[in-house]
C-alpha cells in the first residue's frame, strides 16, 4: 500500500473514503495499462481477436471514470478537503481524467490494428513495425512506472516519470522520420505508413498521459506543481504565442 499517509483523520470514515478512491484510481490505472498492453500485443501478434477484446472493454474504463468522479464529488461535498486532502482529491481527479484518455488511446491503437490486419491485407512486415514496437515498449514502461508511482504515491518514482518528456518526443520524431523514408522508398507503402503513424501518435499520447499522472503524484505528495516546466518562458524572453507542450 501507499508510502504516503492518506489516513489519520479523527473521522475514520474519511480515511476509508480516501483509501477507497485511491484503490479505484489504481484499478482504473491497472485497466488502462492492461488495455494498452493488449493493444500492443494485438499489433505484435497480428491478433485481431485480442484487438476486438480491447475495443470491447473500453466501456469498463469509461464506467470506472464516471464512478470515481462521483466518489470524488461526494468527498468534496461532504468533507470539504483542505491541504494534503485537497491535493489528494485534485490529483486523483486529474489522474482519472488522464487514465481514461489512456484507455481511449489504447482503443484507438486496437482499431488501427484491426485496420492493418483484419481480412486479407498485406502484412507491413517487421521493418515497418519496428518503430511501433519500440515506441510501444517505451510507453508501456512509462505507464507501468507511472502506475507504480500512483500506487505507492512515491515522489521519487513520480518525478522520474514526469521528467520523461524529452525521451518520448525524441522517440516519436525518430519514428516519424524513419517511417517517412519507407514512403520515399516505395509509394505503395503510404497506406500502411499512415496507419502506423497514427499508432505512433496514439502511443505518444499514452506516454504523455502517463507522464501527467506522474506530475499529479508529485503535486499530491509534495505540493509542488511541475506541469509545463519545460515550456515556461524564461525571464526576459519574447513571448512567441502559445507554449508547445507534448500534452
Amino acid at each position: 500500500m501507499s508510502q504516503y499517509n492518506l489516513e489519520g483523520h479523527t473521522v475514520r470514515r474519511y480515511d476509508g473514503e480516501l483509501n477507497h478512491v485511491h484503490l479505484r484510481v489504481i484499478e482504473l490505472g491497472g485497466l488502462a495499462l492492461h488495455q494498452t498492453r493488449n493493444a500492443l500485443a494485438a499489433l505484435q501478434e497480428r491478433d485481431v481477436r485480442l484487438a476486438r477484446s480491447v475495443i470491447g472493454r473500453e466501456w469498463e474504463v469509461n464506467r470506472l471514470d464516471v464512478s470515481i468522479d462521483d466518489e470524488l464529488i461526494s468527498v468534496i461535498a461532504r468533507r470539504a478537503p483542505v491541504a494534503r486532502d485537497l491535493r489528494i482529491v485534485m490529483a486523483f481527479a486529474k489522474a482519472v481524467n488522464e487514465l481514461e484518455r489512456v484507455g481511449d488511446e489504447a482503443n484507438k491503437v486496437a482499431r488501427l490494428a484491426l485496420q492493418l490486419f483484419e481480412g486479407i491485407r498485406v502484412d507491413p512486415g517487421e521493418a515497418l513495425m519496428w518503430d511501433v514496437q519500440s515506441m510501444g515498449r517505451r510507453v508501456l514502461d512509462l505507464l507501468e512506472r507511472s502506475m507504480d508511482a500512483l500506487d505507492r504515491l512515491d515522489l521519487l518514482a513520480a518525478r522520474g516519470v514526469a521528467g520523461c518528456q524529452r525521451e518520448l518526443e525524441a522517440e516519436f520524431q525518430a519514428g516519424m522520420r524513419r517511417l517517412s523514408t519507407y514512403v520515399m522508398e516505395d509509394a505503395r507503402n503510404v497506406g500502411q505508413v499512415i496507419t502506423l503513424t497514427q499508432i505512433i501518435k496514439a502511443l505518444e499520447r499514452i506516454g504523455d498521459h502517463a507522464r501527467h499522472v506522474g506530475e499529479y503524484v508529485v503535486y499530491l505528495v509534495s505540493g509542488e506543481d511541475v506541469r509545463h516546466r519545460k515550456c515556461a518562458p524564461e525571464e526576459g524572453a519574447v513571448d512567441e504565442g502559445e507554449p508547445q507542450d507534448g500534452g
Partner: protein
Amino acid sequence: MNTSTSDLEHKSVQTSYVAPDRTAASRATVDREVRRTVGEVRVAEPRIRCNDIHVYYGAAHAIKGVNLDVARNEVVAMIGPSGCGKSTFLRCLNRMNDTIDGCRVTGEILLDDRDINTRDIDVVPLRAQVGMVFQKPNPFPKSIWENVAFGPRIHGLARTRAQLDEIVESSLRRAGLWDEVKDRLDTPGTGLSGGQQQRLCIARTIAVQPEVILMDEPCSALDPISTAKIEELIDELRQHFSICIVTHSMQQAARVSQRTAYFHLGDLIEVGPTEQIFTNPQHKLTEDYITGRFG
C-alpha cells in the same frame, strides 16, 4: 505505516518546534526554540506589531513568545484547537486580558508604532481604536439607535443629535443592517435576530471609528445565512480596517482571511497566506489540524 516523504520534508521545518513533553535539562534550549514560527510573521507596513508576547494565567504560561504583524486592510484568521491561546492572544491586542485576575502580559504590542502594553495607556480610547466583536451578540438593553450612538457620544465624536444620526446611519449601512432596521431604530436592539444583533454589535464597534476590529468567533452562534452576511461584511470592512478573527471554522478562515495564523499550545506554529496554508501548509502540526488528523 512507513514514514512518508512528506513527513521527512516536514522535519526540516519542524526543527523549530519541540513537543511539549520536555526534559528539565533541555528546557532552556527548548523554550528558546519553540518561539520560532514557520512563515513570515512580519509585513511591510504593520498596523499592529507584536514582539515576543507572553501571557501567564498565574503560573500557567498561555502564550509563549508570539511575534506577529497585522497589516492595514487585511484580515488575519487565527486558528487552532481549543486552549491553544488564540483568543488569549486576540484579547492582548486591546488589553481585554487586563480584566482577568492573575493574568500577566509581557512583550511589546505596537499599534501604529505606539506600545499599548504599558501602564500609562488609557484602555478606554484604546478599546475604541481596537474594537471587539464577541462570540455571542451582546447588544445593550437599549434601542437600536442608542446601541450605535452610545460609543460616539461618550468618546465625544459627535456634538449634536444630527451628527449622531449621521454616524448611526452610516455605521448601520456599513454593517449592512440599515435597510432592515431604519424604520424601527427606537425598538430594543435585543429584539433583533441573532445575526442582526451581531451586525448591530459590528455597527456599534465601527461607530467609534476604530483602526482594528477583533472578532472572537463572531459567527459561531449564527445560522449559515447570517454567517454569510457577516463574512460578506468582513470583506467590505477590510477596505477600511484591519481585522483579526478567531474562528473554529476552517472554511470560514479560508473564506474571509488573507493570512492565517495557526496556534498550538501557546505557540504560533505557522503563519502564511491563507491560500498556501489551506493547500500546502509547511508545518505538520498545521496540516494535521486543518485536515482533521488530530483533535
